[in-house]
């Protein structure tokens, strides 16, 4: 995800329409765009022209069609207003970035990782995730209320899980958490974010070198052992960097924002707390309703196309309004309402098509364990500040909270 952000350049100005929210909800203008026009020509945060696609069916159709809608970051680089970087640096930024390549290159990279994220593999991780969640709840209980649920629960749990899985020293978390959070913050100057991207790659290069010297039992070790001949060092660095960011920025924001959404709907919170069968559908509904990845990676058209009856010329940027599509009345009724008892299958929170989130089974497992564990440990969990003082994280590629003060 970082890679695309690094591609976009210039100072971050006004918040792009598809990232604007009122609390949990995309702004009303997004619903109007979806329900009236479907597709609108807009400017990205960096002044590049783009087409914003907001209907569920159109979003799915674009995501399913990687031949006409490319993820290849070289195309985005060539867009007017894109940053001027050396070819060497561009190649290095692109190497191993599954979100910046199309099939067949994407297929080659993804097939090396797919075996590591099977449903069966994830189930094997379950006991360790339960333990990690319990450890953090123990620490919260011991320290006593109040607590910042983001700092004490939502961020550290997925962070530790992905560190162990990947083979990243958890002791380094403070520096990489800060770095990735800033990388994804479009309000920061582009130069600063490019520099953070370079630091990030240097850090991962160090870890890759260590894994190459002595491959461990973690995913980095596996990649070196099983695919060391097929992957360049730059590709290993790219893959590892992407997994580290994707593994903690996403699930942690779902846990924080999801906990807040449940606190605002106490009867639904009680269901998730008390009925084990309610948990899995509730996680899907929270994914749908919160749509924390505002838009994912913009696509670039490889030829003249039509989306929702609107003609889009070749080499145009296409932005997919995932959060708005998840609430499309043509997809499901009353989409602006959180209802953990509904069937939210078909949401596009994890994307769709060949780039569908690789870590989705891991994210689901973490959430299915963490939400009920939190609510059962602290049955009287409550906000420690008025709702309108809760700080949402605007200007960030992934929606979330800065902090979530709670008591019990």
């Amino acid at each position: 995800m970082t890679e695309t952000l690094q591609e976009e350049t210039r100072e971050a100005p006004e918040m792009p329409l598809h990232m604007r929210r009122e609390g949990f909800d995309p702004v009303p203008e997004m619903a109007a765009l979806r329900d009236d026009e479907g597709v609108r020509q807009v400017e990205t945060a960096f002044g590049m022209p783009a087409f914003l696609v907001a209907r569920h069916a159109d979003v799915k159709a674009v995501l399913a069609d990687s031949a006409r809608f490319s993820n290849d970051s070289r195309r985005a680089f060539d867009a007017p207003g894109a940053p001027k970087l050396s070819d060497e640096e561009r190649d290095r930024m692109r190497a191993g970035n599954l979100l910046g390549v199309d099939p067949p290159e994407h297929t080659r990279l993804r097939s090396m990782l797919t075996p590591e994220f099977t449903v069966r593999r994830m189930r094997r991780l379950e006991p360790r995730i339960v333990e990690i969640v319990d450890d953090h709840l123990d620490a919260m209980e011991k320290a006593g209320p109040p607590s910042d649920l983001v700092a004490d629960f939502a961020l550290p749990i997925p962070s530790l899980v992905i560190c162990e899985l990947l083979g990243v020293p958890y002791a380094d978390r403070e520096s990489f958490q800060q770095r990735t959070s800033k990388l994804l913050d479009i309000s920061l100057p582009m130069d600063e974010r490019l520099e953070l991207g370079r630091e990030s790659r240097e850090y991962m290069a160090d870890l890759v070198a260590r894994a190459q010297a002595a491959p461990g039992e973690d995913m980095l070790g596996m990649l070196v052992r099983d695919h060391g001949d097929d992957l360049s060092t730059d590709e290993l660095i790219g893959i590892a960097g992407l997994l580290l960011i994707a593994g903690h920025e996403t699930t942690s924001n779902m846990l924080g924002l999801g906990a807040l959404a449940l606190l605002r709907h106490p009867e639904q919170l009680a269901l998730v707390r008390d009925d084990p069968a309610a948990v899995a559908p509730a996680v899907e509904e929270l994914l749908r309703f919160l749509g924390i990845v505002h838009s994912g990676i913009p696509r670039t058209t490889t030829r003249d196309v039509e989306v929702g009856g609107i003609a889009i010329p070749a080499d145009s940027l296409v932005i997919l309004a995932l959060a708005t599509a998840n609430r499309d009345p043509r997809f499901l009724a009353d989409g602006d309402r959180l209802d953990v008892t509904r069937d939210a299958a078909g949401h596009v929170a994890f994307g769709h098509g060949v780039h569908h989130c690789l870590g989705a089974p891991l994210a689901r497992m973490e959430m299915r364990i963490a939400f009920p564990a939190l609510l059962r440990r602290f049955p009287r969990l409550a906000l420690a500040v008025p709702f309108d003082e809760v700080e949402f994280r605007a200007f960030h590629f992934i929606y979330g909270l800065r902090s979530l003060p709670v008591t019990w």
Partner: protein
Amino acid sequence: MKIEADRDVCIGAGMCVMNAEEVFDQGDDGIVVVLEVEVPPEHADAAARAVAACPSGALRRVDA
């Protein structure tokens, strides 16, 4: 109800296994394995959900 899976299209997202583990599995490569090509009626709903949920479009219902 019959199910066809295209292993060349599958990306190993595992949505089928999550929706209908009696009908689908993933091989060591993570790619779909259809356990029950002829889906027993009691698993037909789950299998249909799996087909709908597949992000890569690798699954297809072949109804007689």
